[in-house]
């Protein structure tokens, strides 16, 4: 099943459009977080908002897919030569041999939020221009990419909350292994909406200031929006691309919105990912943590990572750069892991000032030049969903 190479990447985050601003931020410690002024939301918090979404529109034949989530996917697709790479792959493999394995948590629900505010006075009908199938429905993102990229291979959308786009790598790897497709586009998008702003606020999980992962005084998450996609291909011929080496998936079976305090489920995902990759814990040079700056979540992950890696492996959460991009976090941090390998750079943790004294992992506050051959990325979500990915360079 592995290795698979990440032959092309594209991304759009609050740090800017494309790989370059993301990589620059990883080097300098820049953050895309700022006070939330999103669409009249009254939640006192910071967000990672993508300014380029203002005034976006889609060309005529795709106009039905217009919604913030598909717009952000479109912005990402336009970056980093990704469209041209997909066009070349389509010629090479055939449109029906490229699978689409995407993830999102809230899809285009923002459009339905708007539609509910514009209901008829008796609240029985939504505005005539509201299109459920192409916006709110969780599959809308994949339908949009099929139409946008001219693909007709197997496609699906994973929606496992904040582990969605990490888990989609597993669907892609299995489908390629089974011969259902020869290559895959993996990734997804999640965008700001009132549902998540007020939802996380109702759980007392949003920080008033920018999030401070693993800080002793951390006080919650900063929600961000992002989209990212990876073209995943078999690694048959020699190459120098970053490779996906393994995946581990588990379920906490503990609580709907709170992780197992000792990170038991996370640890199983981490150990299964290492086993799947045939990589020893001692070979991993950096762990990109899920750590979103919640009290319980960061502590649970510190337990899990320490239990497997001890205190020798550098690790950090990059949520202070991008915010917690929810369903998109898996692919954004897969891309960050690939950049770490490409540029031999372990990212730091902007906004984190003092590491929680109870934590035992070797947590990086600032980015560091390191020799990296293998890195891990963790993504955990509501419903107890855990996923760890192992990436590496060819040896």
């Amino acid at each position, binding site marked *: 099943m592995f290795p698979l190479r990440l032959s092309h990447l594209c991304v759009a985050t609050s740090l800017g459009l494309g790989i370059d601003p993301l990589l620059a931020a990883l080097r300098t410690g820049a953050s895309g977080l700022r006070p939330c002024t999103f669409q009249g939301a009254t939640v006192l918090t910071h967000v990672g908002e993508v300014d380029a979404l203002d005034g976006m529109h889609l060309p005529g034949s795709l106009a039905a897919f217009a919604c913030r989530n598909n717009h952000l996917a479109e912005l990402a697709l336009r970056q980093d030569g990704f469209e041209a790479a997909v066009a070349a792959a389509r010629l090479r493999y055939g449109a029906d041999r490229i699978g689409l394995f995407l993830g999102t948590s809230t899809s285009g629900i923002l459009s339905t939020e708007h539609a509910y505010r514009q209901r008829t006075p008796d609240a029985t009908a939504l505005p005539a221009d509201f299109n459920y199938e192409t916006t709110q429905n969780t599959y809308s993102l994949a339908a949009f990419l099929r139409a946008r990229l001219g693909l007709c291979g197997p496609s699906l959308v994973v929606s496992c909350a904040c582990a969605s786009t990490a888990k989609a790598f597993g669907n892609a790897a299995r489908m390629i292994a089974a011969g259902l497709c020869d290559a895959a586009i993996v990734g997804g998008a999640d965008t700001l909406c009132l549902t998540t702003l007020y939802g996380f606020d109702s759980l007392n999980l949003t920080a008033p200031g920018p999030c401070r992962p693993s800080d002793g005084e951390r006080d919650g998450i900063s929600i961000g929006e992002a989209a990212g996609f990876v073209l995943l291909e078999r690694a048959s011929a020699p190459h120098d691309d970053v490779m996906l080496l393994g995946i581990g998936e588990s379920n906490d*079976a503990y609580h709907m919105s709170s992780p197992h305090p000792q990170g038991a489920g996370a640890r199983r995902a981490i150990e299964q990912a290492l086993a799947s990759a045939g990589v020893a814990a001692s070979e991993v040079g950096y762990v990109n943590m899920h750590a979103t700056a919640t009290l319980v979540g960061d502590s649970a992950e510190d337990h899990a990572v320490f239990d497997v890696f001890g205190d020798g492996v550098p690790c950090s959460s990059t949520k202070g750069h991008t915010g917690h991009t929810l369903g998109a976090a898996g692919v954004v941090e897969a891309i960050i892991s690939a950049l770490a390998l490409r540029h031999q750079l372990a990212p730091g943790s902007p906004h984190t000032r003092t590491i929680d004294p109870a934590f035992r992992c070797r947590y990086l506050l600032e980015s560091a030049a390191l020799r990296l051959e293998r890195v891990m990325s963790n993504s955990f979500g509501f419903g107890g969903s855990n996923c760890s990915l192992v990436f590496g360079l060819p040896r």
Partner: protein
Amino acid sequence: MMRVYVDGVGLLGPGLPGWPEARTVLSGNAPYQPRDVALPQVAQLPPAERRRTGAVVKLAIAAGLEALADAGRDAHDMATVFTSSGCDGDTIHAILTVLATEQREISPTRFHNSVHNAPSGYWALACAATAPSTSLCGFDGSFAVGLLDAATQAVVDQRPVTLISYDMPYPEPINRVRAITGVFAVALVLTPDRTPHSMAVLSLRLRQGDGGGTAMVEPGLERLRRGNPAARGLPLLVAIARCGDGGGGDVGIEGIDGAVLEISVAAP
């Protein structure tokens, strides 16, 4: 061509209150008589969690538990693929209604119940299920998408996988723009190798094209099939039901954008 065995079936729908009764109806040995669906409480959950579960969670878990019992399997180490077009429409509607008011104070329980993988989360709590679980969406093709993914996982990872597909109607006003008819869930325990519980063997092939899925002969069941994304799987259940008489057959399950999941069904 991918081959998997069916070791257990669970089913809940109008006039189809479980696999034993449904098998009789679907194999043509009893008339189809639609009746309201009674959704059982999830007895395995602690009372506090039980009170928080919505209808769609009860629906999905009921079908999943029946399939596991049918297959003689334990849920604890069973990988699961949950698939649904809309999942919990009641919860989504309740949140959207509050967000359209000035207060916007949504309930934390409603918020965590609104995630597409809520049935998977409650399943894990009810069954201490720590194995990998995913939750998928393929709009009207959600059943075919889930079945292809579950079968792929069974074959590639060489482990049993349980597919649970479910959908139920949205409340108004979303119901007007996304009509889902009937309450329906189906669960299949798939294994990569034949076991003493195997009741059918499926050979699957995804064909891209312009539609042409198998229809149900009985008009009420055809309305259910066309109205509910999970019920798109009914023709497969007919073929599985007929395997007991040495039948089976070839069916096409509607997928995405005119794709058809072609399945040859035979006694194992």
